[in-house]
């Protein structure tokens, strides 16, 4: 072990690997004390909120899907729910179920990608899922097939898995026949078993002992694990509807990042699978609850490294839920309900794979978007990533720079940050008479 030789030292990661989008990290240490931790999101801003202004409301789903290739359904879902609130449209019954189902597909696809291809290599000592396949071919193949099962749901309902095309205000442009959905069943049953094995597999990894103080935020719905609906709840007692989001959550710009930092009453907080599971484990399916209990972990989970376990439990839940929804499915009389345009403002929050995703729109009498605001999960988690790195850093200070940097990257990957998402939100406050 080296003595305190690092008078002033900078640990830098120029490109954070195995995350979506482009980010970097800069940590400065003086006299053995961590000074600054800067998660730099240099992914260029893409001005989505500005592009939405002046577009017709029925174009929104195609545009916001392009914010993220990994979680386009989340953007489409938050958008349609916010717009439906403006028009007073209610989507119920099997159309509502289909929205839940396509969201399940996205969770399975996104979570399986992260668990197997992006994060598991950290625990097993590989640079990538592809490299891991040399020694663990069965595992990687299982992960890819799980991911494919999620994509199959998205493709059937949405036409394709990256940027699906069928979601619209009021429902879908086309809904599947019963037998099309039933065609998915065999593969989903296989995937359910694979998901059980996944939870057991990741629960056996070695985890650093790390329990930062955590403020968790997620949706909480009555009687079901949350996807599209629910109250926003926090571990310090907040319980609000999406309409009140901006009264409690605020975004700040920092000089070193193209993404805004979002805080709750000034504090950083955590959204995503860990937060969701902590608030909603009572709404898991019996099998998912049983498998989670079998890991021996006690809730609430506070170790960010356990995110991979929460994600795996959610894969299992999403598969169980998909099978349930397919069993229930009774094709609706029409793929969408009628929409009558009226002017107004609407908000919605849904649970993207990485956590709550907030949208607000203002629409005029012609159905044209006049204002849009989008707060993605990664902007919300940024402050927490920095805070947790600051707490974790002291145990890395005796490592050579390269190893310390690698360890920091492992911490960052726990949050499954989606940097592409995080740079598309801009605060657009335009006052018009």
């Amino acid at each position, binding site marked *: 072990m080296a003595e305190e030789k690092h008078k002033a030292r900078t640990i830098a990661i120029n490109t954070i690997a195995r995350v979506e989008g482009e980010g970097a990290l800069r940590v400065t240490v003086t006299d053995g004390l961590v000074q600054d931790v800067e998660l730099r999101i240099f992914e260029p801003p893409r001005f989505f909120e500005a592009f939405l202004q002046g577009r017709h409301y029925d174009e929104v789903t195609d545009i916001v899907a392009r914010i993220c290739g990994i979680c386009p359904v989340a953007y489409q879902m938050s958008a349609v729910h916010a717009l439906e609130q403006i028009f007073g449209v209610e989507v119920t019954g099997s159309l509502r179920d289909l929205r839940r189902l396509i969201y399940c597909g996205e969770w399975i696809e996104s979570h399986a990608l992260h668990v197997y291809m992006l994060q598991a290599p950290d625990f097993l000592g590989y640079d990538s899922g*592809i490299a891991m396949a040399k020694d663990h071919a069965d595992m990687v193949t299982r992960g*890819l097939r799980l991911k*494919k099962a999620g994509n199959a749901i998205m493709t059937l309902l949405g*036409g394709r898995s*990256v940027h699906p*095309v069928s979601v619209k205000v009021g429902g879908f442009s086309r809904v599947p026949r019963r037998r099309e959905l039933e065609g998915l069943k065999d593969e989903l049953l296989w995937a359910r078993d694979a998901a059980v094995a996944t939870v057991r597999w990741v629960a056996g990894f070695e985890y650093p002992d790390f329990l930062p103080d955590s403020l968790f935020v997620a949706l909480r719905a009555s009687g079901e694990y949350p996807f599209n609906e629910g109250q926003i709840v926090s571990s310090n007692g907040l319980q609000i509807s999406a309409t009140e989001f901006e009264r409690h959550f605020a975004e700040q710009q920092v000089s070193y990042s193209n993404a805004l930092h979002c805080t709750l009453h000034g504090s950083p907080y955590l959204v995503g699978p860990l937060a969701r599971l902590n608030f909603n484990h009572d709404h898991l399916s019996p099998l998912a609850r049983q498998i989670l209990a079998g890991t021996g972990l006690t809730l609430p989970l506070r170790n960010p490294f356990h995110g991979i376990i929460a994600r795996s439990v959610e894969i299992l839940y999403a598969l169980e839920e998909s099978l349930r929804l397919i069993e229930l499915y009774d094709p609706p009389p029409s*793929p969408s309900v009628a929409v009558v345009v009226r002017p107004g403002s609407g908000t919605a929050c849904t649970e993207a794979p990485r956590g709550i995703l907030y949208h607000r729109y203002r629409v005029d009498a012609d159905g044209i978007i006049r204002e849009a605001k989008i707060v993605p999960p990664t902007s919300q988690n940024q402050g927490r990533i920095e805070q947790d790195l600051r707490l974790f850093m002291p145990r890395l200070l005796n490592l050579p720079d390269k190893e310390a940097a690698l360890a920091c990257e492992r911490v960052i990957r726990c949050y499954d940050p989606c940097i592409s998402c995080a740079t598309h939100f*801009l605060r657009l*406050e335009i006052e018009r008479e």
Partner: protein
Amino acid sequence: MERQKETTTPVRPRLGIFKFTSCDGCQLSILNLEDDLLTLGQVLDISYFPEASSDMRAGPYDIALVEGSITTPEDTHRILSVREQAKVLITIGACATAGGIQALRNWADVEAFKRVVYPNPQYIESLTASTPISEHVRVDFELWGCPIDRGQLLRLLTDLSAGVQSRLPSHPVCVDCKRRGIVCVMVAKGIPCLGPVTRTGCGAICPGMGRDCYGCFGPAEGSVLGPGVPPNTASLAKQFHHGLQLIPVEVLRRFRGINGSVKPFREESQVWERLGRDE
């Protein structure tokens, strides 16, 4: 970790995958190869793919896949370095090939965006236009789509590895609808569809889902008149206006979308922008 000596393994072509301004969807399409992904990793030496691997090795690369458009001063330098290191450079997706959806900024005042939008606009480095890779460096092959089609990507990589010149079809989506027996959404439902002027590649996904094509694969090329002929956007736009009663600004919006900055779509949208102003 033990590393086997690669003395017996034939030299595999080195692949680098680079990202500029984009949503990651086209890189995800590579990971979505699923069944073929591990084979791809055996056939090609994936030397640089930060989205999926921490093992980031320097060039030269036999093949560089580039996702995303150029939108920052730094991007303009980085793409030169990618080009220098790559034998064959392929753009993947609408952003890299056409400027992408972020090219909508090309009609706007980006400085004003930044001032209105960020409390401290001076921190934000962003060019006034989003431009395709081909405006900066020589591009050997362009793969269209938002997102790209996995099958097309696989075919292109296979052809390249085998030293075969790749050709991908560029006819309009309409042809695919006829082949698949999809009822025309424009004729039957009166929905303004870009299928007649949009390049094939997706397999007519949108009409198959009961809605209009919105131009993900960019302008079609070639027609009964011969190869390289641009699509007849003017005729389609007139049909939108006279036949389907779209007002000029609605015709404009149809063309100014995912691939709005590509010449045939860009010029058509500008025609209707002028018509809208004159009305």
